[in-house]
């Protein structure tokens, strides 16, 4: 369950045990940013690692992200930003989560975020930031280790 890619010869479908905890992650694009290739690739990789991904798509506001995360009771929010608006939008997500008593939801991000700003976001509470070229295995490992209940 912890590998990112599917084995080349398909295994027989598993019979799921009845009692099962699953990691749930909300992925989305914040703000006016049409670069959705990265977030789709990541969503797909997480699915293949056994995660339930709720993909909320483009043009999400911090308010929408937090409301959806609460309704879906996700363990983490994966934000994708390649537009440059990360320093205003991501801190707002953290703020709203705290306001709603949902500060335990892990926020992580990917996209074009310069190192110094990434460091600043991390001091504000973003768990991890993944830039271009990050291997999907790295992201899957992060989700498996940080978000498992």
């Amino acid at each position, binding site marked *: *369950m912890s590998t990112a890619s*599917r084995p080349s010869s*398909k*295994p027989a*479908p*598993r*019979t*799921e*045990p*009845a*009692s*099962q*905890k*699953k990691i*749930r992650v909300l992925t989305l694009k914040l703000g006016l940013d049409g670069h959705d290739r990265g977030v789709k690739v990541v*969503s*797909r990789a*997480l*699915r*293949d*690692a*056994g*995660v*339930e*991904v*709720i*993909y*909320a*798509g483009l043009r999400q506001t911090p*308010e*929408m992200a937090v*409301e*959806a995360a*609460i*309704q*879906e*009771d996700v363990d983490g929010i994966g934000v994708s930003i390649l537009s440059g608006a990360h320093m205003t939008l991501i801190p707002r997500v953290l703020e709203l989560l705290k306001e*709603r*008593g*949902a500060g335990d939801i892990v926020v992580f991000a990917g996209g074009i975020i310069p190192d110094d700003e990434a460091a600043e976001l991390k001091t504000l509470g973003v768990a991890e930031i993944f830039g271009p070229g990050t291997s999907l295995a790295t992201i899957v490992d992060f989700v498996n280790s940080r978000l498992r209940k």
Partner: protein
Amino acid sequence: MSLAASLLQGDVRALAKAISLAEDRDPEATQIVTELQPQTGRAHLVGITGAPGSGKSSLVDLLLQVIRQRGKTVGVVAVDPSSPFTGGAVLGDRIRMQRHTLDKGVFIRSMGARGHLGGLAAATREVIHLLDAYGRDVIIVETVGVGQSELEIGTVCDTTVLVLVPESGDAVQSIKAGIMEIADIFVINKADLGGAEKTRRLIQDAMALGPAPAWAPPILLTAAIKDQGGVELWQAIERHWEYLSQGGGLQDRRLQRLKQEVLALVAEQARDDARQQLEGDTPVARRLRQNPNGTLNPYALAAELMGRAR
């Protein structure tokens, strides 16, 4: 405060957490649902089913618009398939209902089927009870994209809407024995693409073959992405609800539903017990391991397991 008590006070996080417990098949969910049961039974349960991509989520979005204009609150349960290989899923129904995200009168929950067959998730019934106790007037359940045999929705909801698309003419002919029969309302969505009238006639012809039923399922045309047909669809759903409530068998439907729910619980428990025995350190499991070529008699094994499972 207990999760159940918080939920009753309208705490959305408590509701969401309780749903997760049900999804994870946590025994605590059983307790919560039991505690809340006196508060349930008020909501109108509407099922939306149909082939993959027929526009179910888009129609839910359209219905939300209409229902909210009438001041009723709504809970949506949207089920998507889980991968049978990894158990993972990308749940994509919510993306079609974006415009209602910030409306406090709308609660949307995406669920992975998690290996459950029948078009729903194993926890769907529990989630409906939770939304009902939470006080939602209308609960809409969207199934996974179905073929011909995923009919469970018909045993879960008061009103079942079957979504078809134009040109599914051949499909209409071949599936009338199964899924057509659970429809209380037919919708031909994507009517903007043309051919919807022809499809309507095909459905009408198929229905005319049988005896006239007490409730003749209406056939409606919609174009969800153009915001067309939503009001008419909601009116039809409300008419069906009135029909059911006024001597049309609402009690009977709910009694059948209770029976189905009990059956499902028994089946789940039995399967769980059996699986544990098959995989645990039991006589049956040991004999299976000693006969790895699969030549043992399945009936004998099943009988043995069921005897022990009691």
